[in-house]
Structures are given as structure tokens and as C-alpha cells.
């Protein structure tokens, strides 16, 4: 064991010194390799972090949502549906929600209006999200007015702004009182946008959904798990798409490494010739060259991954943001929570180190089988 370790150490020592003798070539290879790892790792880190963010946000949402459908379109739901739902065993609580969108011509942006039930907001007051503060440069105490459905003006006094910590969900929020909401959109009392139902036992959720569906055939039922699954699929799909687009660059990289590994200088050929002349076997030369490749691979992987980490979590992933998260006028400004996933690192390893290794095997072999007398002559 000791002897084996010493042999590997000497081999590693030799390969490091031979890499440093060809500094230019090694550094060039390392730069390209690092760039590839950086690109792919950025995509993966970003999409994983945003997926987690979505999951954390949704963890607090109600288990079941019930929306009324009229002619295939979402419609207002009457409050009497609530009684039918509350009668189902296993339903912990059910309440009507009021929410909608409001277009603000002054900012050319859509706000999300909501009526919070806990704590309630006093009529005439509004609590706004960070994005709304930004586009309207509104401070607490300022007045904002909008045209209601019948043309009359509805005025709000800004009470406070929501902190930026929850920007991902609250950036375009506009929280108002129930009376104001109904006046703004002309929604009669007794009607809600949809119903939120919470269920104590998660294993009963599907059964309760079935019962609601049987009792209220004109409704559509949305489960939280379904939303989560959809998000997961969408982000996976986007990430996969981007990786497939980047497959061209992986291929180019494989060709590049093949080129680099096969373009042996006369010096290198002589070196291998001498090694074989002093008694190295073909297998030893291959091992040496593979070890060189391993050193380059692991350094590039480490550096590339660290750069990608800094790019995504400290510099907001400027390169891929528009593709991966979509676009809106009032886009939230937020910092993603750093998160490294084992599966993701393993996958990335397969995408980069595996093609590189495969691409360099043949050139390495070509170099290793040269006859000493032909190169030294």
C-alpha cells in the first residue's frame, strides 16, 4: 500500500512538472475548460436556487384552491359554495379570497391587488410592495388614486411598504381593504375571486378534492402539490433546454481538447521517447497522461464551479437571468439563497469531465505508442 501510494505520488509529481513545463498550452486548456464548467454550473445553480425559492414560497400557500369556471373561463365564486365545502369532513378551514390585477397607466405596470384578512387593512389605506415603491417613488403618507370600474376616483393613502426580503412574491403587491377592492372593481358582496381551503391531514387532500368536485361541478380544483410539480417540471425543462443549447459548446470543447491532446510538439514526442527508452511501458505513459488530464479536469472543475457560485449568488446571474426567470416590468430584485445540490454536482461532472476524458483517450494512446527510436533519431 505504501509503495503504491509513493508510486502515485511520484507520478503526480512528474505530471505536475511536465504540465508546468508547457505553461502556455496548459493555461489555455484550463481557461477554456473553466469557462465551460462555469457556463453549465451557472445554469444549474441558478435554476436549482430559483426552484427552491418557489418551493419555499408555495409551502405556505393553502392546500386546495377552488375556482368557479364559466364557459371555460375563470369566474367569480359565490359565498354559498363555502358552506358546501365547510361541510366536508377533514376540511380545517375555508375562506373566500379577493385578488386581481390593476393596470397603472402612470407606471405602465400591472399591480397584484389583494385583500389580506390577517391583519386587515383599514379602508382608504394601502400597503405596497417594493416594486411599486420603486416605479411610483411612493413613500408612506403619499396619496395614490385610481379610476374605479365606473369612472369615479378611488384614493389610497400609502400606509407602509413591504420589506424587500420577500421581494420574489411581494414586489408588485398592492394590499387594500375589502370595501375598497369591491368599490374599485364593482364586485358585489357575497362574491369572491376564489376559495382557499386548508386541510389538516395531507393524505386526505386528494379525497377532499374529489368530494368538492362531486359537490360543486362548476368548479376547478387546484392542489398545491400540482402547482409545485408544475413549477418543478417547468424549471427542469428550461434548464434542460439551456443545456441542450449549450451541448454545441460541449461538443466544441470536446473537439478542442482532442485537438490539444493530439497536437504534440516535437519536444513532447521526444520526452515520451526518452521515457520509453529508459524503461517506461506504454501503460505507464498512458497513466501519466491520464493523470495530467485529471489534474487539469479537477482544477478547472473546482475553479469553474466556484466562479459560477459567485456569479449566481453574488452577482445575480446576469448572464442567464432573462432566459431562466422570465420577464416583467415590475420584476422583483432579490438575492437567491445559496444552495448546492449533490445530484447537480454529479450531473455537471458527467457533462464536462466525461466528454473531456473520452476525447483525450485516443490522442493520449497515439502519443504513448510511439517507438523510442523513431522520435529520438
Amino acid at each position, binding site marked *: 500500500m505504501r509503495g503504491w501510494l509513493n508510486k502515485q505520488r511520484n507520478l503526480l509529481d512528474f505530471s505536475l512538472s511536465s504540465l508546468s513545463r508547457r505553461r502556455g498550452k496548459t493555461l489555455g486548456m484550463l481557461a477554456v475548460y473553466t469557462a465551460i464548467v462555469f457556463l453549465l454550473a451557472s445554469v444549474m445553480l441558478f435554476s436549482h436556487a430559483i426552484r427552491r425559492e418557489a418551493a419555499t414560497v408555495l409551502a405556505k400557500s393553502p392546500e386546495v384552491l377552488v375556482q368557479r369556471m364559466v364557459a371555460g373561463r375563470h369566474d367569480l365564486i359565490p359565498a354559498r359554495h363555502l358552506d358546501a365545502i365547510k361541510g366536508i369532513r377533514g376540511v380545517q378551514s375555508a375562506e373566500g379570497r379577493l385578488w386581481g390585477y390593476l393596470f397603472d397607466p402612470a407606471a405602465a405596470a400591472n399591480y397584484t391587488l389583494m385583500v389580506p384578512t390577517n391583519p386587515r387593512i383599514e379602508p382608504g389605506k394601502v400597503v405596497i410592495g417594493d416594486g411599486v415603491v420603486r416605479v411610483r417613488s411612493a413613500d408612506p403618507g403619499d396619496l395614490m388614486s385610481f379610476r374605479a370600474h365606473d369612472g369615479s376616483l378611488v384614493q389610497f393613502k400609502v400606509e407602509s411598504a413591504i420589506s424587500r426580503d420577500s421581494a420574489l412574491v411581494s414586489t408588485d403587491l398592492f394590499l387594500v381593504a375589502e370595501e375598497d377592492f369591491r368599490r374599485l372593481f364593482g364586485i358585489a358582496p357575497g362574491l369572491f375571486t376564489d376559495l382557499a381551503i386548508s386541510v389538516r391531514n395531507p393524505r386526505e387532500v386528494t379525497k377532499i378534492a374529489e368530494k368538492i368536485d362531486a359537490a360543486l361541478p362548476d368548479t376547478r380544483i387546484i392542489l398545491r402539490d400540482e402547482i409545485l410539480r408544475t413549477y418543478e417540471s417547468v424549471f427542469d425543462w428550461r434548464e434542460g433546454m439551456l443545456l441542450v443549447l449549450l451541448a454545441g459548446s460541449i461538443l466544441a470543447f470536446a473537439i478542442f481538447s482532442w485537438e490539444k491532446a493530439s497536437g504534440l510538439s516535437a519536444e513532447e514526442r521526444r520526452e515520451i521517447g526518452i521515457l520509453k527508452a529508459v524503461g517506461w511501458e506504454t501503460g505507464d505513459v498512458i497513466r501519466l497522461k491520464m493523470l495530467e488530464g485529471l489534474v487539469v479536469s479537477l482544477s478547472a472543475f473546482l475553479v469553474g464551479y466556484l466562479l459560477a457560485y459567485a456569479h449566481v449568488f453574488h452577482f445575480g446571474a446576469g448572464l442567464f437571468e432573462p432566459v431562466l426567470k422570465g420577464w416583467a416590468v415590475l420584476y422583483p430584485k432579490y438575492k437567491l439563497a445559496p444552495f448546492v445540490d*449533490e445530484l447537480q454536482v454529479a450531473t455537471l461532472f458527467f457533462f464536462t469531465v466525461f466528454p473531456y476524458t473520452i476525447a483525450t483517450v485516443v490522442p493520449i494512446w497515439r502519443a504513448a*505508442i510511439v517507438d523510442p527510436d523513431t522520435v529520438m533519431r
Partner: protein
Amino acid sequence: MLFQPAIIALLLASLVGTLMVAASVPFAVRVMRRWDTASGSEAQLEMEKRTYLVSTLLVVVLLSELASLILFVFNADRMSSLFVGAMCAVGTLNVNDFGFPTLYLRIAVFFAASAWLVLNHVDSRGFDYPLVRVKYGALMALAPLMAAAAGVQLAYFLGLRADVIASCCSTLFSGATQVTSDKLAAIAPEASLAGLAVALILVMAAGRRALATGKGAVAYAVLSLVAFVVAMEAVVAAISVYVYELPHHHCPFCILKGEYGHVGYALYLPLFAAAVLGVGGGIAQPAASLASLAEAAPRIMRRCVGSSMAGFALFGAVALWLIVRSHLILIEPERLLSILGGQP
């Protein structure tokens, strides 16, 4: 479903691997027909040089194959959130008919590939390519197996549809459905643990004999495969139950999850390594009859058997630790005493 990074990586790895192995098959045929170390012809020299390429390529490919088995299971577990009803890898693998066959084929490829790597290693110790025909014959057998695994895996991934309702491991391993694993779970925990203990003792005895006399490594290889099967069965029937501390939850995959501290890896990695190394010892021993390997083959056999025994011992220790630290009492002390012949 193909646009999933881990799936793309797995498909890429198995595609490249299969292509590489398939591309070596014509060369293997040439070696089988024309190999002759006594000849100094150009063709023979060329073939001798070529063997280095094929060996190196296959070492890379087969190592990636071993790594992708772990990635496959890990990914199956992770994807369970995408399927209705799936709660761990069992659900994901059950989404269509190709899931479990993919896993079994991958495990078969894992064993075959490791056996080939041992063969290759033994062969490289002899100066006159002593096992070259055996090696390339084995390669020709390995190629279709790898192609089958890659094909079934592709079918599995192509057939993954998120709207299919999968069954969770609790219905599969403890419900009324008739699958092999269900029968495994039906074995009494006492019997399975006793079987495991007997198998491990036998393996250790055979290993000691092989180490001391240098003979019986083939028997050890067979025994280690048997112990592998018995151990897997004990994991389903008893050990996993101790981990979950739920008498009716028999799942060999949930123990890989983070909720249980990934203890599954501590069980499976030594177990798989031990079984594979045991088989490797059985491969190395017969090679000792060849003149050029008379010295190297027994050494490799001893190293394989020794590490294999260490692997089984580690598996046994981890299993024992899991049982001791568990709060679940699956076998009552009185019954244990009566089994052992003591007074209750």
C-alpha cells in the same frame, strides 16, 4: 421528460459507453481469430499496441458506468416529486414497465463491468498478454448487455409521463400486490437476519481459508454473490424497518433519502463493493495456473478477497449499528431468548 439535466447526463454516458464498447467488438473478433504472440508480424504488433487503447477506453467507460448506477438511483429518488403518488425511487421506477428492468440491467452491467476490470487488471500484470482471448471474449459478451441496458434505459426515460399515477413504496412492499419484493418483505425478520448472519459467517470462513491457503476463491466468489442476495433481502425484510421505525414500511430506497441521513449509502456501497470484489477474487484465482501470472494472480486474489471481507464486515457493522440504535423492537427479547435456546 428528456429535458432533465441528470437524464441527459445518464443518456449521454450510456450512449457514449455503448458506442465505445460496440466499436471495440470488431477488434475483439480480430484478436480472437488472429492473436499470436509468437508472431512478429506487422499486424500482430499493431494489435498489441491497440490493446492499450481498448483497455484505457474501457476502463474510462466502465468506471463511468459504475458512477452512473449511483446517479441513476439518486436521480430516480429525486424525480419522485414529479409524479403523482410517487414518494421515493420505487414510485419513479414504477411509472412505466421499463423502470425496474433498467435498474436490474444496470446492476448486471455493474457486476459484469467490474468483473471485466479485474480481468483486465490481472491481464496487465503478465508480460505476455496471458488472458487476452478471455478478456476480449468477455468484452463481446459485455457489449450486448450494455446495449440492452442503454436501450431499456432510453425506453424508460422516453416513457416517463408526469400524469401517470405511480404507486408508492408502501403499497408495493406491504400491500396486496404480488411482486418479488413483496414476497421478500413477507419473510420474517428473525429468519432474514439469521440468514444474513449465517451467510456473513460462511463468507468470512471461506475468505479466511482463501487467504490462508490461496485456494477456494471461486467458492468465495459464489458465496459472496449468495451473501449479496441474502443481504439485500435482509435490508428489505428487517434492516430498513429498523431504520424507519415503522413495522410495515419495507423499502430499500427510502433509506437513501436525506430524512434518514442517507444511511442507505453506508449500507449499499460496502455491500456492492464487497460482492464485486468477491467475484474479482474468483476471477483472479484460476489465472494463477498461467506461468506468467503465477506470482501476480494470487496476490491480486488475496487483495480482492481481503477487501471483500472488509466490505462485508463493514456492511454487517453498519447493519448492526442501525438495529441497535433503532427505537423499534421488532423481535421481542423473550422470543430472541427462546430462539437462542435460553429461558424466557
